[in-house]
């Protein structure tokens, strides 16, 4: 099968859908001829024209408001937030409108929109362009939250997000854009709320999301040399969360390490750890649950400090060993 980058997979998912569904269109800053800040939409304006690939003013609130309005009136908009940090400006539309309206209209209205946005650190973009704020939106009932980690997953999950009649916040990790994997040419959908076991193991479960899936896989390969068998669960979507797969895995291994790039304090790892503590997997826990997350400080500009601010492979290796008393 051909290989595709994560970035190309995002573009392909949108293009395939737009070719057959006229209701789907894109809005965002510099997504036209320029192709967006990371080049995801490059070439799309040539195929679909400026009506469907719409450049907007630099106003995230405005883009989000237009997306909510067009979705309510029957379109299926995809809005691109240039950096996920800027969701702060769009949040009133997303939290108080998009997330609420289907409920408040008793199901008579719906908001089928996708908010695509690059997140995470590692590009030297400093404190205002490097955050991982997925826990903010995961907290809001009415929003679905997706964090794909591979090119294959991103294509299938974006299809499911575009098909969904509810607002979906779709996080694309900046460092993952250039990663590639085998991706089928035809359209396919990965259901939201279905975790993926990225590696099977018996000694400890790592629940990792987005970029951390890859760091966990690296750590697992190292740990395997020492005879430690790691199972890696990628939830893929935080809302809805596939609790069953995580519970089953922890029940099997008896040990859990949760890793995400977002700041540990108040991060989604706390939700996963609590969910396990409340679940039937509790009686199988043979070590305290460990969480790894970003430090409680803005992401530094200095590249070395930037790396130190979020979990790295050695941190994951150490956490696993600590969990195993090794």
């Amino acid at each position: 099968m051909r290989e595709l980058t994560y970035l190309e997979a995002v573009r392909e998912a949108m293009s395939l859908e737009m070719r057959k569904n006229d209701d789907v269109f894109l809005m965002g800053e510099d997504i036209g001829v320029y192709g967006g800040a990371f080049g995801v939409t490059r070439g799309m304006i040539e195929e679909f024209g400026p009506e469907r690939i719409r450049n907007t003013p630099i106003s995230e609130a405005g883009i989000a408001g237009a997306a909510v309005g067009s979705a309510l009136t029957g379109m299926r908009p995809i809005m691109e937030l240039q950096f996920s940090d800027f969701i702060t400006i769009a949040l009133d539309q997303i939290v108080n409108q998009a997330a609420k309206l289907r409920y408040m209209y008793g199901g008579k209205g719906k908001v089928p929109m996708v908010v695509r946005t690059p997140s995470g650190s590692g590009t030297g973009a400093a404190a205002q362009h490097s955050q991982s704020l997925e826990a903010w939106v995961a907290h809001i009932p009415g929003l679905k939250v997706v964090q794909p980690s591979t090119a294959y997953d991103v294509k299938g999950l974006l299809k499911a997000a575009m098909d969904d009649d509810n607002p979906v916040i779709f996080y694309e990790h900046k460092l993952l854009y250039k990663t590639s994997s085998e991706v089928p040419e035809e359209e396919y959908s990965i259901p939201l709320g279905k975790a993926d076991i990225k590696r099977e193991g018996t000694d400890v479960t790592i629940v990792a999301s987005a970029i951390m899936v890859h760091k966990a896989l690296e750590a697992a390969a190292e740990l395997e040399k020492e005879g430690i068998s790691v199972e890696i669960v990628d939830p893929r979507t935080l809302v809805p969360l596939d609790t069953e797969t995580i519970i089953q895995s922890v029940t099997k291994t008896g040990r859990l390490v949760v890793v995400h790039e977002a700041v540990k304090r108040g991060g989604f790892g706390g939700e996963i750890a609590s969910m396990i503590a409340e679940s039937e997997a509790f009686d199988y826990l043979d070590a305290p649950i460990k969480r790894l997350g970003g430090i409680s400080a803005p992401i530094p500009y200095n590249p070395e400090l930037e790396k130190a601010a979020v979990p790295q492979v050695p941190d994951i290796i150490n956490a696993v060993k600590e969990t195993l008393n090794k």
Partner: protein
Amino acid sequence: MLKEVFMPKLSSTMEVGTLLEWFKAEGDTVDVGEPIFEIMTDKINIEVESYEEGILLKKYYEVDDEIPVNAVVAYIGDKNDVAPETPTAIEAEDETAATADAPEAEIAENAINEESLDTNEKVRATPAARRVARENNTTFNGVQGSGPKGRIHEQDILDAINNKSNKLVTPLAAKIAADQGIDIAEVHGTGSRGKVVKQDILNNQQPQTEVTEEVERIKLKGLRKAVADKMLQNAQSIPHVTLTTDVDMTRAIELRKALLPVIESQTSYRVSYTEIIMKATASTLKQHPRVNASLIGNEIIINKSINLGLAVAVEDGLIVPSVANVDKLGLADLTTVSKELGAKARHNKLTPDEMKGSTFTISNLGMYAIDGFTPIINAPETAILGVGRIVEKAVVVDGSVVVRPIMVLSLSFDHRAIDGAPAAAFLTELKECLENPWALLV
């Protein structure tokens, strides 16, 4: 929290223990199962082990002190705890009295301590380890945790269940086992809660004979266990001396023949030699009160009543009903009482009252082809009479060999309480009494 170390009550007769040696100084850390001090009781010397772990904070007694049972000998606690200058007074012989005297809070505290010994409270263990313990209906007692700060993980409890390596074991036994390369798991512990003690390890060293054929195994329990414990204790703790003598039973047989119809018509019981011997023994004991004594603690108690214990064989066991005041009973009444008690014993209907209070015991094996034997004293009594069969033997009387019915009497006595000469004098007089039983009428 402060935890008391008590003087243990190791036997029903123990009232004080003498402190022989301290193994720990104030400020030393003490582990569960570690000996703290050694005491001497009226029966044995024994090391007293700690039920708690912590620091030995305070010692209240010195070597050679006699310490009453249940008195606080020392305190164990954290380094932050402060032990009182004088120990809390808990002066009571038995537990019911002790709890009655103690303030309620203390009772509650003791109860909690007791409990924490046997439950999983306050143990550092993972949920998985707790689940496994629960599923296997076991506790974390003695399980070594492999995690940080001794946290018990699932594997630890699984190992403990599978290897039984969680056996309680005294430090001395553990050392001997390690030196000899003996696997503790294979050793059967005889101490409290199955604790492996030194003797268990030593016993285990004996080469075990290969048993190829099927054997029947009977567990020591119930009456068998009670008999075993008592016999072991009495045999090991009492310096026994056994004296034997031949008794010419010619006149005793005549006496019985004469009394048989009389007593049978009165009581419907047939008087046996046992009753005649009991009567003679009671009469002789009256002249020799030192043989009718009990040894309890540091005291020899000369009993006023003459209550004879009668060893009765029952199914897989031995029980000793007590016939009270034998010296005051006529043979007819004595026959009735002893026959009834014997029947009750065989039907397991004796009340506890009917089994206690004996001051001297008679064990009769005369129905078998047994002459003399060495009976074991029924503590706290200080002597026991073994009765053999009556058999015709050639004896020399007045220079000629004649045939006489002869019976051997075996008297075991406690040499701590009685010396050889007075015991011999007693047995001699008993022999004369049986050879001239008419004297019993006097």
